[in-house]
């Protein structure tokens, strides 16, 4: 498959997942803020911005400004509107490689989120936008699964989606556990909701919300689709398949980084992870994800031609 096409599929998927993550974070934070008597509103939105990789400006901690930046600011590259736009832009470059249904879903969502105008204190508009994105993402993931052939292109789609998700959940965990000394149950509910994990968590651990269990669930649960381990294992699967389909490429570097990313999540006892420096560990996950991204890019997408002629 053409490198450019693989790259567009990967980024389409990453941006889409990013928009979906952002919608969940806004949704959870917003719900949390409605009980603002219990926590500081500023702090909640501060944390939401950190989760999305947007260092907040200390002078404008106005929640409304924060919501606007996260949701509908086209100038902010991580906002929902910008991410859906970037996903669509990538998809439009490879219309022939994705199914017509995928394009339709993405196109429809793009036009839908573009119509929202979010004024001050307009909580309902925010919730409608978030709802539209979440509905749209269920549809998009559904048609992607069922209408796109599960070949190499689809593997790049999966790789993009789960790389983004592994990073997003790691950042969420990091942000929530950084403030865990004065976090209460509502905060933990918000964290779980940000990963669509509340129900699944309760099935495993009951509604007894303990930070250590929450961390364990979101970090290393092997079956929950938003856990870091689950995401990393899907990345691994996609990469193994891509490697198998591209016999001519160097594989050692990718396999090494993948192993380094996966091993602690699969084999290190959680108690050890939690008793140590969780922040450093999560940062390590992010670093390995970045290294993997770079390795994939340099192996399959933008490799130097001298290397191509040696192999």
């Amino acid at each position, binding site marked *: 498959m*053409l490198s450019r096409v*693989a790259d567009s599929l990967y980024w389409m998927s990453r941006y889409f997942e990013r928009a979906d993550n952002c919608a969940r974070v806004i949704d959870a934070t917003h719900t949390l803020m409605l009980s603002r008597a219990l926590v500081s509103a500023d702090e909640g939105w501060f944390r939401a911005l950190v989760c999305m990789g947007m260092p907040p400006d200390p002078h404008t901690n106005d929640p409304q400004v924060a919501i606007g930046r996260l949701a509908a600011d086209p100038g902010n590259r991580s906002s929902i509107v910008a991410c859906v736009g970037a996903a669509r832009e990538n998809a439009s470059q490879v219309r022939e490689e994705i199914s017509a249904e995928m394009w339709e879903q993405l196109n429809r969502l793009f036009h839908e989120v573009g119509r929202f105008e979010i004024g001050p204190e307009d909580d309902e508009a925010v919730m409608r936008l978030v709802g539209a994105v979440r509905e749209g993402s269920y549809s998009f993931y559904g048609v992607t699964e069922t209408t796109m052939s599960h070949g190499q292109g689809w593997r790049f789609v999966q790789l993009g989606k789960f790389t983004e998700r592994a990073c997003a959940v790691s950042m969420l965990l990091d942000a929530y556990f950084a403030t865990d000394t004065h976090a209460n149950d509502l905060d933990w509910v918000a964290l779980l909701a940000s990963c669509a994990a509340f129900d699944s968590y309760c099935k495993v651990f009951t509604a007894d919300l303990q930070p250590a269990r929450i961390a364990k669930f979101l970090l290393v649960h092997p079956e929950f689709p938003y856990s870091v381990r689950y995401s990393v294992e899907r990345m691994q699967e996609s990469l193994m398949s891509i490697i198998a*389909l*591209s016999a*001519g490429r160097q594989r050692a570097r990718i396999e090494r980084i993948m192993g380094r990313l996966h091993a602690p999540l699969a084999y290190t006892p959680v108690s050890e992870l939690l008793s140590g420096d969780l922040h450093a560990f999560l940062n390590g996950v992010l670093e390995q994800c970045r290294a993997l991204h770079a390795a994939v890019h340099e192996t*399959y997408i933008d*490799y130097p031609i001298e290397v*191509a002629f040696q*192999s």
Partner: protein
Amino acid sequence: MTTSAAVTHDRFADYTLNDAYDELFDGKAQPRRPYRRLYKELMNLTPEELGRSKQKADLSFFNQGITFTVYGRKEGTERIFPHDLIPRIVSGSDWEVIERGLTQRAIALNLFLKDIYHERRALRDRIIPAEAIYSSHHFRRQMSGVKVPRDAYVNVMGTDLVRLPDGRFTVLEDNLRVPSGVSYMLSSRKVMKQIFPTLFRKYAVRPIEQYSQLLLSTLRSLAPDGRRDPTVVLLTPGVYNSAYYEHAYLARQMGIELVEGRDLVVHDNYVYMRTTNGLQRIDVIYRRVDDDFVDPLAFRVDSALGAPGIFSAYRAGNVTLANALGTGVADDKAIYAYVPKLIRYYLGEDPVLDNVETWLMTDAAGRQHVCDNLHAFVVKAVGESGGYGMLIGPHSTDSQRREMRSRILADPRNYIAQPVLALSTAPCFVDGAIEPRHVDLRPYVLFGEKTVIVPGGLTRVALRKGSLVVNSSQGGGSKDTWVLQN
């Protein structure tokens, strides 16, 4: 007059015949033989039924995403290609003449291109003035002495034919660079089969669906020597090009990669595409990018649509470009005037299909005559296509004519004039009624190992009443073309 005759009359109440040849009715207002069955069918259909079929067809085009881009308009640049429901029917005997004429023309034009880029016999023998060649914007001196596989320069040719009042098909212009529209021919056929299955079967329409396979085998036959299982790709300028839909469609139909310039790498005079499995050598490039943009090292330096070094690989014979570079000199509208002469010169035969009478503005007497009578001529810029840069005398204003006159005088080589032609009319379903509209016909000629023409083409329609401009960029549409067995 019986009741049924009155009804009969009603259905075609708005169908007014004029000087032009009408494809449906003969001079006595009787349906011509190939159209008789269709005529009966149309009689039996109410406008409501036709309207429903029209909606069904439009929806099908919409769902397939068959659109084109109109340049120079901000709002809604992507549009559904306007399509007319009523097929245009070409009899087997008419087609036989067209096929013979176009084959002859394709052979002669390829000989001509080989000649002007090598020996230049036609110039020495004064068949065509050297000045006319060297002043053409599409003459590529870089192509001098370059050998192209099978001496096939124009591998895909889209020649526009019009039918004049005497009923004869005549060549209006050749498109020898990157002719487009074939995807409309193919998808319109697919839609028509869904809408008029019975009529279709009764008519024994000759098939065109094999076009993609024929195109692929034509391209494969042009691979550099010794490449047994050649890799063929389609090079597109990208998603913002007006014909991108067609590029994607053809690549998919042929099962080849749709590449952009940024996917290509040239190394040691070989062209490769960058894939996830490493660099893959390319043997044949069906390029839908103009000459100027193929290689910034050889042509326009500011172009990012091609890849640096392609031309050198092409010269070395390591990759084939289809169409060859420099073919535009032969569809220059001023060179067009010489084509009948060229056919006689290279083949020793009379042209099967005539040209339209053409006045070269480089000729002083002709120029004077045309400038004095602009209202009676169609003036075209020689290097343009798509109906851009054109003046239709009878439909022009004083100021448009003044402007054209000064442009002609400033650059005579850039213009030619032709008499205003009465293009034939064919029945179209417009605003709930069946009315005649002017049409042309663009068949597609494939020229590689063999010369092949699928029986059909793109019939373009000037959908605006009275209009003679059929280009999609100027408000034209298309209809399916049914070539009959006999």
